[in-house]
């Protein structure tokens, strides 16, 4: 449950949505993407309604939303990122597959390409999900808790990848739970607890008075 959310996020920045458990962080991004019903309000992307710009947005759901015992390989999952380009009937061509290989190389997934996803560590699972989103070639990346259950080296690799995507002009919005890594890695923060408590640069948002409101 969320109310009175009036939020305008900057482009080409790495934005964190933080707040205590149950604050509605996931609900906010899911409502914006029409994945859960909204009582009221609307979300616009680049001043356009969602249905006109779906292909420019890539969503990375929470890891536990899928069945990791599903019989697919890492490469199969990454290939699913082609879905918006292929629609229902087209088959991937050489150019598409090249993009898939590039992204997998960049995230160090090539050696795992044929591995069933049931045999992945938490970090490998998140890299697979990020690769699927990157294959879409979307300008806006929305990720729900991508750092949950991730080891240190993977976290660094994910942040480095996201920051270089931002430097190429992508916008990235991340539902995040770890306040400690916010200041160092993000450009913009939204502090949420059922409503927006504060939004702005990490140094202006993560001050004691705000944090007491959210977590106190």
């Amino acid at each position, binding site marked *: 449950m969320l109310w009175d959310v009036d939020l305008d996020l900057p482009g080409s920045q790495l934005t964190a949505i933080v707040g205590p458990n149950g604050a509605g962080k996931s609900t906010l991004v*899911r409502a914006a*993407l*029409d*994945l859960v019903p909204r009582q009221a309000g609307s979300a616009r992307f680049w001043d356009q309604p969602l*249905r006109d710009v*779906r*292909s420019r*947005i*890539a*969503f*990375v*759901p929470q890891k536990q*939303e*899928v*069945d990791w*015992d*599903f*019989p*697919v*390989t890492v490469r*199969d*999952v990454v290939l*699913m990122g082609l*879905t*918006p380009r*292929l629609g*229902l*009937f087209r*088959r991937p061509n050489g150019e598409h597959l090249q993009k898939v290989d590039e992204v997998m190389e960049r995230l160090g997934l090539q050696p795992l390409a*044929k*591995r*069933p996803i*049931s*045999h*992945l*560590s938490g*970090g*490998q699972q998140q890299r697979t999900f990020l690769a*699927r989103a990157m294959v*879409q070639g979307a300008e806006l990346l929305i990720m729900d808790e991508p750092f949950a259950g991730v*080891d240190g*080296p*993977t976290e660094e690799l994910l942040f480095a990848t996201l920051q270089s995507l931002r430097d190429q002009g992508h916008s990235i919005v991340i539902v995040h739970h770890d306040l400690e890594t916010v200041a160092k890695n993000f450009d913009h923060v939204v502090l949420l607890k059922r409503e927006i408590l504060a939004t702005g640069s990490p140094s202006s948002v993560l001050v004691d008075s705000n944090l007491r409101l959210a977590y106190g």
Partner: protein
Amino acid sequence: MVDLLGDYTIRMVTIGSAIVGGLCGALGSFAYVRRQSLVGDVVGHAALPGVALAYLISQSKDLAVLMLGAGLTGLLALAVSILAVRYCKMDQGTAFASVLSTSFGVGVLLLSLIQQTHAADQAGLDRFLFGQAATLVEPQIITMAGVGTGALALMLIFFRPLVTLSFDPSYSRSTGLPVVGLESILLVALVSSVVVGISVAGVVLVAALLAAPAAAAHRWCTRFSTLVAVSAAFGALSGATGGFLSSTWANVPTGPLIILILTGLVIVSLLWGRRRTEPREVPS
């Protein structure tokens, strides 16, 4: 064996059971990976009142007519269960169990009604309870093969988006895939395979034809496309073997025999399948 297959009844039962097994094995893979194997049970049980109603209305025992009735009540039961879960916040297991037993009860009532009023004529209908393939004739096999081909074609045409949807519904919706349309296509294909299945396995046992081959195949496969193929092969093989044995060796009903063979396959796969459930130690 060649001689025996020359026998019309044996040939029909073997071919019919192989078609049913293969079809249910293929479509059942989707139900299995979506953890919806109970869907087969609901549609199966709900097919019984459909068979009875179709007979009451048309006064015909034409398999195509009975299958149409079975398919319609199967879809209706599924729709009711899904709506009960979505809008009455009923737990899925509860919804499935209630709809399943209610529709089966209605079916049994209708059958006994038919038995009292159309005594001489109804002899063929109770074979839909536990399945008896011995009475299959060629036109029926052609009907079953036709419906089965339709269901398989739907599955193959939409294979890639259906796999994406089954693996990750949230992601699929976020990419703008027509999720409701794809779900409906999959349900129609599943219901069709159940409806084909009941003429051999009966409404009570058909669920196992959907669940067992995929459960066995999962132990041998790491990719979904292979799982579908292996599951279909397991189903067809068990169907053909069960059909052949039931029509040559003693007078046993076909459905239960196929199910027992499938259960054997599942046990063998669980014990010796190469895919282990615990994660391997892997470098990250």
